[in-house]
């Protein structure tokens, strides 16, 4: 049976087809010696030889900074205006299966009781096209968190490299509609997919055990926390590149007479994050903040939102200036 395929040579056409309908096409591209998810206009811009983009594509669903409201301060009045979310039709192309798996949890959080339409409206208009990995490095650990380059969780369309083509598998309805909408670009044929590269599962890590250990609250005051995380410098770089981190701040900016309210990325690793006005800080020490992040990934986020708290993309490991490797902590908690 002939499979749906996408010829690599036809990528340009796909971009045209998407942008022609007013959509934006986001793909990994080279910028300042890094592979970065960015809006692209042509196929030439798209990077092919990469493991992962530096950034997670979350910023196209949940931007680093966005205006949620504007206001003008008059003499006796305040003119307060909500801002419509800017949610263009978006195709995220070339995401990796690991990072796509973050979407379930993100969605759960942003729709938990209160629905954050700044997220959902963008999500509605976004098609995530993942490409199975044919490369990995020593920071990749998707297999350790029960994902793999073959996972399709969170993807709308799943591609695999197959020589000069991709095999195409529409996963969700949205994905199917996308393939249909751009049917002219997709072809069919029988091609053999290139082998996926599976990062080795880290032997000493047992995710179930980690989860169990964290449920037992006695770990909380365990000396192992400060010991393992003493070197953490609280820079928060890990949280900014993490596909599942989504903490934010709300701030006002402007002049004395007008301004805007913004929703900005924030990081649980900052000491001011939980600082009370009184000076009291529930997470005063860096190890407490680190513990919170680790628990968020492996305890309460999966428990609460039944999503993946950690997808094993390894970005935090790569970016950490002091090489505090989350898997080393997972290892400790697998004991």
């Amino acid at each position, binding site marked *: 049976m002939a499979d749906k395929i996408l010829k690599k040579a036809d990528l340009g056409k796909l971009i045209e087809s998407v942008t022609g309908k007013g959509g934006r096409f986001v793909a990994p591209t080279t910028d300042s010696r890094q592979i970065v998810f960015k809006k692209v206009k042509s196929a030439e811009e798209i990077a092919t030889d990469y493991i992962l983009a530096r950034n997670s594509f979350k910023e196209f669903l949940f931007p680093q900074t966005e205006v949620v409201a504007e206001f003008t301060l008059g*003499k*006796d009045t305040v003119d307060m205006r909500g801002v419509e979310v800017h949610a263009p039709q978006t195709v995220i192309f070339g995401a990796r299966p690991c990072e796509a798996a973050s979407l379930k949890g993100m969605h759960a959080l942003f729709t938990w009781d209160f629905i954050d339409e700044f997220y959902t409206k963008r999500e509605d208009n976004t098609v995530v096209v993942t490409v199975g990995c044919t490369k990995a490095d020593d920071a990749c650990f998707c297999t350790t968190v029960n994902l793999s380059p073959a996972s399709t969780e969170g993807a709308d369309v799943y591609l695999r490299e197959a020589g000069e083509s991709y095999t195409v598998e529409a996963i969700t309805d949205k994905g199917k509609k996308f393939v249909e909408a751009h049917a002219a670009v997709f072809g069919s044929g029988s091609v053999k997919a290139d082998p996926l590269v599976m990062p080795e599962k880290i032997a000493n890590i047992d995710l179930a055990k980690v989860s169990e250990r964290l449920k037992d609250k006695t770990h909380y005051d365990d000396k192992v926390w400060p010991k393992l995380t003493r070197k953490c410098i609280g820079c928060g770089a890990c949280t900014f590149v993490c596909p599942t981190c989504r903490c934010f701040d709300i701030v006002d900016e402007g*002049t*004395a*007479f007008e301004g805007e309210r913004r929703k900005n990325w924030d990081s649980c690793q900052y000491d001011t994050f939980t600082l009370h006005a009184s000076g009291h800080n529930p997470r005063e020490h860096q190890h407490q903040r680190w513990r919170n992040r680790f628990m968020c990934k492996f305890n309460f986020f999966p428990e609460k939102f039944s999503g993946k708290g950690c997808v094993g993309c390894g970005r935090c490991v790569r970016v950490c200036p002091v090489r505090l490797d989350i898997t080393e902590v997972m290892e400790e908690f697998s004991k």
Partner: protein
Amino acid sequence: MPRIGVFVCQCGNNIAATVDTKKVAEEMGKLPGVVYTCDYKFMCSSPGQEMLRQAIKENKLDGIIVSACSPHMHEKTFRKAAEGAGLNPYQCEITNIREQCSWVHHDKTKAAGTVKSIDLTRMTIQRLKKNQPLKKIKIPVKKKAMVIGGGIAGIQAALDIAEGGREVILVEKEPSIGGNMARLSETFPTMDCSQCILTPKMVEAELNENITLYTYSEVEKVDGYIGNFTVTVRRKSKYVDEERCTGCGECIEKCPFKVDSQFELGLNKRKVIYTPFPQSVPNVPVIDAPNCTKIQKDKCGACAIVCGPKCIDFKMEDKLVTEEVGAIVVATGYQNMPNERFGEYGYGRIKDVISGMQFERLASSSGPTGGEIRRPSDGKIPQSVVFIQCVGSRDEKKGVSYCSKICCMYTAKHTKLYSHKVHGGQSYVFYMDIRSGGKRYEEFVRGAIEHEGAMYLRGRVSRVYEKNGKIMVQGADTLSGNQVEIEADMVVLATAVVSRDGADTLAQRLGIGYDKYKFYNEYHPKLKPVETVTAGIYLAGTCMGPMDIPESVAQGSAAASKVLALFSADEMAREPITSVVNRTTCNACWDCVTACPYTAIEREAIKDRQGNVVRWVAKVNDGVCQGCGVCVAACRSKSIDLKGYTDEQVFAAINAF
């Protein structure tokens, strides 16, 4: 919202001619927080001020803007008026729409001036919203002064303060007060004897009940600030009990050892137990410990044996005393540039080349020669004397760039003294310019030249050498254009007036500034000539630079009047524009401490209940801080702010731009 009133002044037609004051008021009325606006002919007039007070009361205003002339003009006026209506005076801000708008933008359509006035007033309004009510700083004043230096300037300052009814401590490094003036023979231009006019003052200082003399003493440490200084004084051991000593002089008489007298500048000897000069105040001898065989080798002890009241104690040690004073007058004086630096004039090589000050001693009736001019080498009376002026002065290369100011006058005096004392003697003066500005000074110099026969030669001396027992002085007479060579019996060098050794160390202890010659800096060379940048510390006399006796005395009195003015109230009120530290975020990097021009920032330890130091933070001393704000800009973590010019206030103004 705050309740702000905006008062726009027309200043007659001064503002109203080119600024539409009504429109300014109207526009300001549209801003949040502005509840009252008006424009008026003369805000500073009595009815204007009354109107302002009324409006504050009636509208319950908590802040006001007066858009009028420069704050340098009427800020005080309006703040006082606001205070009269119960408002904190620092809740009143001025917008300058006259000097900055109406007077410089002459556009008769009023457009430019009005727009700018509106902008400026708006910025001030936003700034005012961030104002904090401030209170004048009250500093208690300890009504006791210290005068450092017992020369004529210091004595004068001490006497004036004492006569004003306040206690003074007069600290003098030498065993006796009197300073340089005590060495002088006669004084220009009146030719009265220096000792005759100085000694009564010295005695007066000793007898005045309000004056405590600390002679043979030096300031070691100064802490605190205006009104509240703590000064540690080292009272060097005299080995003689001052309380019991009667000044009989038996000990000096009996002392078998003699050394060169510093007071006589090596022209004479003194005993090892000595008073610097006969009229010393206090008249208590001191033992020159390094030269005393009893102290060094435990031999002799003759002085102790003859001492009636048994007041000699060879084991006596230095004492450190701490004094709390409210003000300090620094009058540490000058010294002459060491003559050794002038080899080309033969000093050190030729015995009869002496300094001007040595000449004073030769001419002094209490000096080594009893007032006869005799040359040091052989005691002969010199028949010709060459005086060389500007030795070291006005000569950046070899000495100092400035003019020592007194040399022209004292050299003229020397020629006079010489001609009076050595009949038929010929004096020559090499000079660059004659500087004789001062009451009866020019006449004095003229007299020396025209009536006393001094030969003035305009030019530099190039060489001084000995030939056949004579001193040959070669030089140029630039007026005639000839090279001249003079055979002299003695040469007198008018060496430059320089700051005292250790002047810089003392300045650092006091926290006052000094120039590159280590003369102390006055706060303002014209308007604050006896103040220093450190409030409560005043200057008098030649520690600031060369000056003559009347000037030094005037400064002593001036400094004293400043001290007395400070002491006239129990508390001193200061503008509350001072820095304040945020103790929770201060990083103790001490950049502010380093940057502060006033040493107004200290280090403070924060301790826990057990008394352990938890952390260090900076602390601003309100008594010293002058409110420049250098520390604020230096602080990276923004943990220090300047009241009255806070970051919030400045930002608010920028934000309303």
